């Protein structure tokens, strides 16, 4: 069973189309929701959580149609970690998490114990009695994760859990999320605009841009798309370039590395012929893998 299924989900804010007929299936496991700022990630998450309603379209959460029971289901089975700086004012970390526990049905003592457990887990041992107002962004992210975990939900939904963090802080949060998926069988759906986050944690990716899904599938397959043409290096590239143009190859020449990336199909034989004609040896010949960022930018700009 999928965690979330949507069908032509659309959300308009006046003239802004935040979600443009999004139809996706989000399977169990670790799924990343990748997209630049303003792509519509938060809007999507809030709609499927029933926080805001879509302009049109349908969605199913854990197989249930949206209906009156939604809040019940969400309270029991889903941990939601909203975007920073969402919090509750004038409370300490422990009070905040404990209260969230109580709202999901724990008696005071149970909620208290549980709050300590999850705060330990996210690494807020020493700060739990401090007012959350004085937390750093990293601590706030941990606190938000802790409150999402307080009732031990099966599905964790995080909205930009790594935003505003330095690399070390990001590693920490991703480590925790990965741990929850790998060792405790949780399903994770999290949004991010950082590609590295995805590579580190997920096997399934949904790419969103301007409210549209531009890729949906495994990370493996997305990596296939990284393979892009052939990278070649000649001893004297300036001699080869006119010949390549003449033969109608499409290519990019990198002025700094002096590498040529040929995007149409090319065999070693053909290149050897060119090299012989230009009287310059081939130094390198290999399939080219674009950096992930480059692929991402291209997919975004094409959409």
């Amino acid at each position, binding site marked *: 069973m999928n965690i979330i299924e949507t069908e032509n989900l659309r959300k308009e804010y006046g003239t802004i189309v935040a979600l443009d007929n999004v139809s996706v299936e989000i399977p169990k496991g670790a799924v990343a929701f990748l997209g630049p700022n303003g792509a519509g990630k938060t809007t999507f998450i*809030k709609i499927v*959580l*029933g*926080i*805001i309603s879509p302009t049109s379209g349908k969605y199913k959460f854990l197989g249930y149609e949206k209906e009156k029971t939604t*809040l019940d289901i*969400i*309270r*029991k089975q*889903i941990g*939601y970690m*909203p975007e920073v*700086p*969402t*919090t*509750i*004012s*004038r*409370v300490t970390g422990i*009070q905040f998490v404990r*209260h*969230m526990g*109580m*709202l*999901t*049905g*724990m*008696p005071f003592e*149970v909620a208290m114990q*549980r709050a300590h*457990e999850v705060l*330990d*887990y996210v*690494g807020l*041992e020493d700060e739990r009695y401090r*007012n959350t107002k004085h937390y750093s962004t990293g601590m706030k992210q941990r606190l938000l994760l802790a*409150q999402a*975990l307080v*009732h*031990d939900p099966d599905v964790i939904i995080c909205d930009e859990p790594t935003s505003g963090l330095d690399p070390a802080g990001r590693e920490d949060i991703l480590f925790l999320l990965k*741990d*929850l998926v790998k*060792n*405790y069988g949780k399903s994770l759906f999290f949004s991010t605009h950082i590609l590295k986050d995805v590579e580190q944690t997920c096997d399934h990716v949904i790419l969103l841009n301007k409210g549209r899904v531009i890729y949906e599938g495994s990370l493996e397959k997305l990596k296939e798309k990284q393979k892009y043409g052939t990278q070649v290096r000649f001893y004297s590239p300036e001699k080869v370039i006119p010949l390549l143009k003449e033969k109608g190859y499409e290519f990019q020449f990198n002025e700094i590395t002096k590498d040529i990336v040929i995007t149409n199909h090319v065999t070693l034989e053909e290149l050897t012929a060119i090299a012989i004609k230009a009287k310059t040896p081939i130094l390198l010949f290999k399939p080219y893998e674009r950096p992930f960022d480059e692929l991402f930018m291209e997919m975004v700009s094409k959409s």
Partner: protein
Amino acid sequence: MKPTLDITPRNSYRPLEKSRLKEQSEFDLIITQTKFDLKRMLEGSWAKAPIIFSGLLWYVTTLFTVSRLSIQSILPIDYWNTFKDSLSLFTAPREGAGGLLIGIGLAVIGSGLIADDNASKAHTIYATKISKRTYILSKILTMLAIVFISLFLWAFLLYFIVIYKTGPPLSGIIEHWYFLTNLVILFVVYSMTIGGIALFFSSITDRSLVAGVLILVIPLLIQFIGTLILYDVTGISLFLALGPYNTVLIVWDKLWGGTYKYAQYMPEAVFSMILYFSLGLWALFKASNDRK
């Protein structure tokens, strides 16, 4: 040699025994949320200084009241008169500082009730835990509790300092159902007018300090403009009744027959009561729609 890289051992995650969760009715949730908010309001760091300040003010005015009443109490004061005088002290600022103090209490304790949630986007968090209705009901209940606290802390102080001294036993009050019912009505009036105003201003801003100042200043301004300018010039009694403290005074007069004979304006007072409470509810409803 083994690498000496020191990796701090992490606490491992502990699954929760689901049997420890219990079904909760909406009523349970409202109570849980109300307790949480009350505690948050009373012990929040922002509230501490103003609470101490208003506590001092309370003390000073109580002393003032005592000195005033002790002059009166040279004469033999009977049971009802004691109550009339001492309780009427908190019906209007011009009669005593009581009404104003309840306003201060509400401004200090209640200003952040919704403004805080607006500021910290807490609506989003609550959205996945409690329904909008639960949220709204709990906020109303919290506001009632704050009025109750403000009102009865004052009455309690009066009892010990004024009434206790002059004689009537506590048991005597409790036996008088009529008196108690009236007190409950007074509580409702306070809650709807001053409480409604507090709900309104706390809901429309995301800065509790601004809310607090507005809760205190705007009713006084309405009171002042309504009574001293509009009512005096036009003679339209609604202007008088719209002053929130006058509203309370009118009901008070109706109940106990006070000195100002405002009882005749009861319909206007009920109108203004409903008006302020509706405004409060409307703003609260609007704020709770901010679940985005």
